[in-house]
């Protein structure tokens, strides 16, 4: 019977199709790639803008990779300080982290040329130089076992003190903290002829309370986060340096990822880095306002704490870092040249701008 035959044919086809779909579905786990887990540490506390953005990044990567690349974020320094996190990355216990200049110095120290004291006058200079320098930074990280995913900033660093600092002579009278083991800090203090008190960052708050030190340096956001502002009364309105930061993963982890996941990680990492830079710059501006509202006094420095006296300190600090091999001379010269080009172009544009 034709009707029956057609009916049976359709029934068999339906059965065959169902079996195929079932087979495809049940075989998916066998064919699927394994899930890659990225354990990522940061000092930023949970709930802060930074960690919220990192979590957004993690969610975005998981979504774009269809769950093949998932993050496990450890906020608030639970995995230890930056040297400890780097050690854990080397041992494969962690795969990545967010680092400040202190940790970056142990990854690829020439990057810290961007933190030379009194190098930049404004954000435009920072962005211009960083863009030109970025390919070299990326290669440097790669050569030392890390992949740079995104760039961050800690922001302009200021002196916070218990007495006003208007001049270099004032600075000489202070008991200034120096982050123990930080070559850049040491170079700055040597170049300034200052004798700081080297201490671990862990001891800063207590040492401010006991009077062992009376002056620290930090970005405004950091001064709030670490509550150092409660032990100091003055902020000297001269940005000492611009603190840098990076989002990195180990090269070994990165290379083991399929190419499409590498691309997702690089693309999203760069984007989240930009967002972090924007958020940090805003937070630092807001923090400065909050600190003055909380009773801190913003001190305008006298002439000798302005250029060119500060330029001399920068040059001497740079020379010292060149001599000990922390930053090659070629890198410093290149940065200076780019900066000079930018400033000349800016000056020319200003001259030619219509009134």
């Amino acid at each position, binding site marked *: 019977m034709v009707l029956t035959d057609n009916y049976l044919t359709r029934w068999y086809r339906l059965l065959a199709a169902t079996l195929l779909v079932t087979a495809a579905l049940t075989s998916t786990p066998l064919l699927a790639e394994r899930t890659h887990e990225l354990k990522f540490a940061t*000092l930023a*506390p949970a709930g802060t803008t930074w960690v919220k953005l990192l979590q957004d990044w993690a969610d975005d990567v998981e979504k774009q990779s269809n769950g093949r690349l998932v993050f496990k974020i450890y906020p608030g320094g*639970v995995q230890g300080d930056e040297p400890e996190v780097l050690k854990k990355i080397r041992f494969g216990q962690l795969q990545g982290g967010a680092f400040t200049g202190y940790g970056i110095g142990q990854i690829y120290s020439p990057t810290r040329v961007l933190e030379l004291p009194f190098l930049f006058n404004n954000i435009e200079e920072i962005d211009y130089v960083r863009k030109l320098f970025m390919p070299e930074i990326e290669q440097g990280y790669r050569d030392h076992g890390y992949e740079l995913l995104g760039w961050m900033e800690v922001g302009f660093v200021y002196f916070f003190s218990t007495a006003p600092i208007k001049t270099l002579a004032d600075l000489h009278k202070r008991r200034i903290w120096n982050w123990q083991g930080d070559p850049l800090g040491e170079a700055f203090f040597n170049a300034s002829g200052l004798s700081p008190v080297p201490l671990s960052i862990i001891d800063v708050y207590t040492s401010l309370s006991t009077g062992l030190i009376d002056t620290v340096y930090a970005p405004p956001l950091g001064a709030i986060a670490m509550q150092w*502002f409660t032990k100091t009364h003055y902020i000297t309105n001269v940005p000492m340096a611009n603190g840098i930061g990076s989002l990195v993963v180990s090269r070994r982890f990165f290379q083991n990822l399929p190419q499409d996941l590498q691309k997702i990680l690089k693309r999203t990492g760069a984007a989240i880095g930009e967002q972090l830079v924007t958020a940090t710059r805003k937070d630092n501006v807001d923090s400065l306002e*909050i600190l003055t*509202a*909380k009773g801190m006094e913003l001190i305008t420095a006298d002439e000798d704490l302005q250029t060119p006296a500060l330029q001399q300190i920068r040059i001497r600090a740079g020379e010292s870092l060149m001599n000990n091999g922390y930053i090659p001379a070629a890198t410093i010269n290149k940065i200076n040249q780019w900066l000079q080009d930018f400033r000349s172009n800016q000056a020319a544009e200003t001259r030619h701008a219509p009134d």
Partner: protein
Amino acid sequence: MEHGLLPASLYYPTRLTALIGILMLLTACSMGQMVVRSSQTILDSGVESMNRETDLQLARDAMPANLKLVEGMLIEDPNNNELRLFAAEGFYGYSYGFIEIEDPLRAKLLYRRCYSHAQRALKQAGIDIDPESATHEAVETAVSKAGKKAVPALFWTANCLGKWIDLSRDDLSLVASLSNVAILMQRVIDLDDEFYFGSAHIFFGAYYGGRSPLLGGDFSRSEAEFQRAAEINDNKLLIVNLLQAEFLDRQRLDQQAFHNRLVAIIEAPENLYPEMALVNGIAKQRAALLLDYEDEWF
């Protein structure tokens, strides 16, 4: 004898005195205020009964009506310090026990309201300062004058502001006020360290335990503070252990301690501390919830 328009009976000295007394009372205190003040013993008993509650759902359902009753009474008697502190304690407990996990945004607003009540009580206690916005020097000066009577207002102001900040970590202005909370709590410890089950010690346990040493954390100090709070409560208040797991064990990345402490809370006898059954019930509930985060946090 001519007595004017008033009935003669009112001119008897005793009745006259009574009338003057009543009039004076009415001038200083409205009828509503009298009713409110005469009801306060009932509120005391209500708080005691709530603390003994073992049915968390019943407590959750009952609290909003009680809180609105207290706020209604405060409209009648706005300067009533005890009522202000009832309100602060109630909003804190309701938010912490039942709202914070499922709706942190709403919890933040409830803590803000809790702070508003407590801070008014602080002002009534003679410490006219707003720790949310004041400089820490101003807070230190104001608080140094506080005596033992101000302890409840100091504690609830600090506790409510502390939780408000905890849920607002992206609000830098509030984060900058955290040191003010510590100043108030330290004063509570100086004046009466056992106040409210040694909660100022619990605060410092979380304060020093929940941060990396790089950011001002101090694990030894945190441990000592939790230990002192446990001593004050004869190890019967489970919230102490809960916060030690949530803040100190997590920050130390000590998964074993975290796990064991939370399991011990869940397995603690139901009648461990009948006077504080509600808080212990909430601690058990949160312990089970925190265990779900174990894989994510470690």
